[in-house]
């Protein structure tokens, strides 16, 4: 199972805790994880990536294993630690503080 940590607003929208688990068939990439996430939580469609272009929304970023994956290809395999469930994929609001 792939672990995904959601930002507060999306946890509230999906009515989940701060971490969810999704099952991914085939290669584990940003795209396949987000596909699985949106199947499990349809209300998240359009909130992380654009409905039509499937591009990451501009004020969101993706991290895992202390690396910024935001600008990686959505079809690039995610780190092995994410694949094995040792580390989560973090979806984070892009502006800190405030």
């Amino acid at each position, binding site marked *: 199972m792939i672990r995904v940590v959601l*930002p*507060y*607003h*999306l946890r*509230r*929208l999906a009515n989940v805790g701060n971490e969810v688990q999704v099952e991914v068939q085939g290669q584990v990439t940003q*795209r396949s994880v987000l*596909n699985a996430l*949106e*199947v499990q939580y*349809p*209300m*998240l*469609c*359009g*909130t*992380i990536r*654009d*409905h*039509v272009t*499937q591009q990451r*929304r501009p*004020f*969101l970023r993706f991290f895992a294993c202390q690396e910024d994956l935001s600008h990686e290809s959505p079809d690039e395999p995610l780190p092995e630690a994410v694949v094995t469930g040792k580390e989560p994929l973090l979806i984070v*609001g*892009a502006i800190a503080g405030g």
Partner: protein
Amino acid sequence: MSGVRVLVGTKKGAFILSSDGKRDKWEVNGPLFTGWEVYHMKGSQADPNRIYASQTSGWFGQVIQRSSDGGKTWETPGGGMTQSPQGWPAGESNKFVYDVSPETGKPLTTHQWYDGTQHPWEFKRVWHLEPSLNDADTVYAGVEDAALFKSKDGGRTWQELSGLRGHGTGPKWQPGAGGMCLHTVLLDPSNPNRIYIAISAAGAFRTDDGGKTWKPINKGLHSQYIPDPNAEIGHCVHHVALNPKRPNVLFMQKHWDVMRSNNGGDSWTEISGNLPTDFGFVIDVHAHELETIYVVPIKSDSEHFVHEGKLRVYRSKTGGNEWEPLTKGLPQSNCFVNVLRDAMAVDSLDNCGVYFGTTGGQVYCSADAGDSWNPIVRDLPSVLSVEVQTLP
């Protein structure tokens, strides 16, 4: 005994305020959709238990929420998933996509930007939800960048009424300070094919064929801040209101100027009269007295707060021009709040109730048509919208 349900959208969630017909004791429920901006909530006249809400965020985009039990529980109406040809799931409920299809879409891809250059249409949020008068599953959405969408399946899927953007003047539309928003949608109860809408800063438009074709209805508007003050389009209309019993008479709060039309928007005359300032956002009409209207004058377009530090609703019982300040129960010193364009509503009880919300988080109610006011709540997040349902 009949009652009212006041639907309040704020910058950090939504609230539902309920009372019986006396409107002196209130139950406050919320916040709903905590932490999100709720631009607008509105109940269906066909089924008062059906309420739609626009939940929006600069980070996470647009979500439509729907309640079928008067606001006790909510759902995102997209529900189940379908598989797109590309293989990824295709959620629908929050999907607002401009129509560019060769059959109905227009090759209209830009509007005027702040600097006068052309800029592509980009969906940002839903400003206003207007349920159909006779079908709880049909609802219209006015959006930024300005367009009108319609759902016939309770908010699950949305289709643009693209004749509005495509009617010809779109490239001249430009954003106001709050963005290029379609903020007003008025359905004519006497003619299901007639809809009025208003856009900042393009002006007011009308369709007489259910949304297929549209025409600007801005004759008589005069705006000194645009190159041609009497242009067909480009006016920053802030809000338009009508009384359903006389839908051909429209009242408008423009950026500056309060206006009136007696012919469905074909022409307008100014009715600002003795107002201390004719800048403002809200305007509404008494539920039973067709010539009684309400505005809240705001100091200026540079100073978005009430005039002289006094929160005053102005009422005209003569359809405009002659206005009286309504102050009883409202703060008359050191008050510097604004009342945004969708933040006033009237109920239809025998003694018409008037409601408005402020950027300071107060929601006021008058159970006597404006003669006196009481705060229902004082310390909500900044209020974006107020609607009221009159319940049997």
